[in-house]
């Protein structure tokens, strides 16, 4: 993966080469599979990270839903790096990878990510086109079958929050949803990594109702936020999506929860607005380091409550 760096933003071709390299170099810990292709025909890669063992519970982590949120794919790469670096060296990660698998989807919206590198840094949606409109793209986080297009989403193809012509209309969201459906019996937690605003959210976002294990999830994100803040003092707010941030239907965390994955979270990483989507590369390291603490906290809880 020539030119790849964990402390730089990497273009898609570099990330794709890295995916192959990290899997090839760590066959005892990482396997790679392709779960689909994007609208423009790129392969959607998924890494399975964990010590091979029959019937292990798993945690699914995805990055890069929204194309311009570059810190998100940077975190997925960082997570894999840390897994490889610390397995067999640090007890917590070793225990996690011995007892759990992590499915890591490094970039969901690959076409959009490529577009931010080549045409417009501020692009958000997918790059699909539909008959009858000259506008491009669907908001992948409005495209899941969770109160699909009811609130906080737009039916206009030109809107940045366009929900699409149908739930899972996008090849990228369909591939992700199909994989989770096929592996529902093992996936115990779902984490989707976004930016910005420094929040940890749990269901629901498509309505003001609360999940049945609201108190458990609230305590979990509170603990995770405390862990995160312990490194650099970064403050995260947390709670159910609808009241903590805003109503938004069609999100992947709500969908995963309704599929039966009772530990489902959205992370909104740094910052709170100074740079927004243009977070400097010098903040990749501290952002990923502190996020690792929160993810490890949640993963450890899931390990203890399979």
């Amino acid at each position, binding site marked *: 993966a020539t030119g790849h*760096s964990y402390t730089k933003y990497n273009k898609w071709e570099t990330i794709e080469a890295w995916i192959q390299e990290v899997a090839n170099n760590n066959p005892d810990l990482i396997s790679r599979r392709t779960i689909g292709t994007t609208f423009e025909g790129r392969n959607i890669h998924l890494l399975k990270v964990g010590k091979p063992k029959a019937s292990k519970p798993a945690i699914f982590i995805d990055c890069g839903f929204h194309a311009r949120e570059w810190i998100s794919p940077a975190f997925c790469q960082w997570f894999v790096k840390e897994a490889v670096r610390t397995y067999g060296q640090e007890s917590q990660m070793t225990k996690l990878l011995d007892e759990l698998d992590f499915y890591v989807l490094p970039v969901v919206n690959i076409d959009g990510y490529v577009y931010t590198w080549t*045409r417009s840094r501020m692009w958000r949606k997918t790059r699909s086109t539909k008959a009858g409109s000259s506008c491009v793209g669907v908001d992948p986080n409005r495209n899941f079958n969770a109160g699909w297009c009811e609130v*906080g989403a737009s039916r206009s193809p030109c*809107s940045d929050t366009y929900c699409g012509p149908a739930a899972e209309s996008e090849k990228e969201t369909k591939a992700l949803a199909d994989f989770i459906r096929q592996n529902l019996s093992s996936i115990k937690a779902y984490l989707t990594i976004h930016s910005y605003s420094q929040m940890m959210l749990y269901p629901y976002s498509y309505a003001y109702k609360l999940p049945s294990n609201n108190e458990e999830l609230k305590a979990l994100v509170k603990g995770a936020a405390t862990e995160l803040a312990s490194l650099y003092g970064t403050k995260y707010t947390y709670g159910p999506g609808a009241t903590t941030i*805003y109503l938004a239907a069609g999100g992947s965390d709500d969908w995963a929860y309704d599929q039966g994955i009772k530990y489902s979270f959205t992370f909104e990483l740094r910052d709170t607005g100074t*740079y927004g989507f*243009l977070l400097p590369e010098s903040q990749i390291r501290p952002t990923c380091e502190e996020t690792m603490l929160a993810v490890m906290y949640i993963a450890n809880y899931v390990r203890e409550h399979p």
Partner: protein
Amino acid sequence: PSQEDFDGNQVFRVSVPNEDHINLIQELANSVQIDFWKPDSATQVKPLTTVDFHVKAEDVATVEKFLEQNEFHYEVLIGNVRNVLEAQFDSHTR
């Protein structure tokens, strides 16, 4: 198309005290192309919150005039998006 350069584009943070101001934000979004950063769209703006949005260089004066005429409290978070965009590549390894 060539790569968009964002020169002169700005990002605003606007305080929204009540429903009247939400309606004004929606009115602004209907008249000028606004890229919402937080929340994701005009329909998600809530009272007693702030709204972050990105405006093209040619619309900056119009937006500022609108905000001032309607007595919004606001700040310019990013004075020139192009500069911040270039500055994001500040890694010492680059």
